[in-house]
């Protein structure tokens, strides 16, 4: 029977579980984000570097072809073509730039409209807690940012693992683990920054700019502290530096002696995430209580 003839009937069927309800939010938001022209352009651009890296991986695993091309087959070239932690650290560093740009474009539209339209009571009057709401919004960014970070990273690692010998994989499995953990930490950080900016700034462009400014301003501030106080710990305030240091540790790349260590950076990042979460939770209330 046609819907308009049937009339309203109360739903009395089975209800879905918490995971399905949680995933409903990203399912509705992803098509909207992927429909944005800038997002598509960025996604396409972000594929070039992984493709180049994939080409590099191929060449490095077929170095025996190089002498035939007349480039010589000495150890210097072989060392330069080595696929190691440094290679993946550079790969992650480049891809992280695209991730920030994507978060700056996609993030501001996630919470600000709900606040502007006073939609939060509608969410929180349903079986959805504040934590679940934040988790669902982060899931949106996780999906988008994974397309430029985790997925290409694992693709390049997987390609290297498949082309190289088993011995290489046994010796370098931690690189895969480092890529996953490093990018996960990075995605959580970038997502929280984007969501917090979205929660506090109504205008998308300004909120997007704020996401970028978060990294640049803190990087500048950390340099000022280092220069003025003649210290090294100021770098801890630079989220870009902190995350890169953690990545290097995860990928087994040696860090600079004087600079703050990976554990220090990791601790500061955790504190930063905690602070961002607290600020975000403070804003996300179903009703505003005026004291």
């Amino acid at each position, binding site marked *: 029977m046609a819907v308009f003839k049937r009339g309203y009937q109360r739903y009395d069927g089975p*209800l*879905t579980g918490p995971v*399905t309800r949680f995933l409903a939010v990203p399912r509705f938001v992803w098509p909207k984000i992927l429909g944005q022209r800038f997002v598509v352009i960025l996604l396409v651009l972000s594929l070039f570097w992984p493709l180049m890296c994939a080409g590099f991986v191929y060449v490095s695993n077929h170095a025996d072809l190089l002498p035939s091309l007349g480039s010589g087959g000495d150890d210097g070239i072989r060392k330069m073509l080595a696929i190691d932690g440094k290679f993946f650290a550079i790969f992650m560093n480049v891809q992280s730039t695209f991730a920030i740009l994507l978060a700056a474009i996609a993030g501001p539209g996630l919470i600000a*409209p709900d606040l502007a*339209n006073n939609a939060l*009571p509608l969410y*929180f009057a349903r079986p959805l807690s504040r934590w679940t709401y934040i988790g669902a919004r982060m899931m949106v960014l996780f999906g988008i940012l994974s397309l430029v970070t985790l997925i290409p990273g694992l693709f390049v690692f997987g390609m290297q693992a498949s082309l190289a010998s088993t011995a290489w994989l046994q010796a370098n499995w931690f690189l895969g683990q480092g890529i996953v953990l490093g990018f996960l930490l990075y995605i959580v950080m970038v997502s929280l920054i984007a969501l917090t900016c979205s929660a506090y700034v109504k205008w998308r462009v300004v909120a997007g700019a704020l996401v970028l400014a978060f990294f640049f301003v803190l990087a500048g501030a950390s340099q000022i502290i280092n220069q003025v106080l003649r210290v090294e710990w100021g770098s801890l305030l630079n989220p870009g530096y902190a995350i890169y240091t953690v990545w290097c540790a995860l990928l087994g790349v040696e860090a600079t002696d004087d600079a703050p260590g990976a554990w220090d950076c990791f601790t500061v990042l955790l504190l930063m995430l905690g602070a961002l979460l607290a600020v975000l939770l403070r804003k996300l209330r179903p009703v505003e209580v005026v004291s």
Partner: protein
Amino acid sequence: MNPVIAVDNLRVRLGKREILKGISCRLGASGVGKAIGLLGPNGAGKSTLIQTLLGFHKPSAGSAQILGFDCHHQSLDVKTRIGYMPENDSLIADMTAVAFLRLMGELSGLPAAAALEKAHETLFHVGLGEARYRNVGTYSLGMKQMAKLAQAIIHGPELVILDEPTNGLDPAARQRMLVLIKEMKEQHGMNVLLCSHLLHDVEQVCDEVVILKDGQIVHQCDLVAERQANKRFVQLQVSGDDRNLAAALREIGAEGVSESAGTWRIVLPVEIEVNALWRISARENLRITKLAYRRDTLEEIFLKAVGHLQPLPQPEVAHGRI
């Protein structure tokens, strides 16, 4: 029969102010479609009570239960069983009505296919069928109210909490909204908690009424019982010096209060005939200019409860569940 809403010594403190000061009541009956009106002057605590029932505020003492589930500790269980229509504009503007309702349905636990089907069904039900593919942000105020109602009932909740549902509606739309609310309880067996300033609306659709003032329940009554009660309320208008009328009424066992100069409201016990009023008036040298039987309107109940009208003496027979 289990109550839909059971509140026991509920106290809610927002900041340093105590908004709800030890409220206790049992409202509605589970499995029976009933509408409960929540009334009170501005700042009485109506919205805070609703928000506490929705789990938005933590009680500082006491408890609130909906359908047997604690609103604070079992809020997810509560929220799967209720629908909420907020007072203010509360929509996702850049979505079509179908997508909006579908999302709300899925968040309430409906499977994706059922949510889509119910979204269409509910939008037709509230009269937005033709506009269901328009963005909600482009809707008129009346349409937005209907969309808010639709999102509250898409999952067929047992209790629907409506906060000022007729706000900003023209008379025709208001009537349609009231009809829908009546249908919700009569045809679909939903319980409705209706918070409104429009007493006429509440009187039209509600079976029970709770009146809040300064964070306390000042009156609770069963409107159905009130309507059916055989109270003999008489409205009397007299000219002359009526200072001794109250005492004269008490002599014959009746009770009366003066509403304004020369206007009295009187409760006559069943055994006393109206003729007695004529006799008293003659004795007190009063000339009756008007005498009419009447019942308390909700407006009078409300005004009495909030202290804007002198209280009527309570008859011995208890009406409602005070």
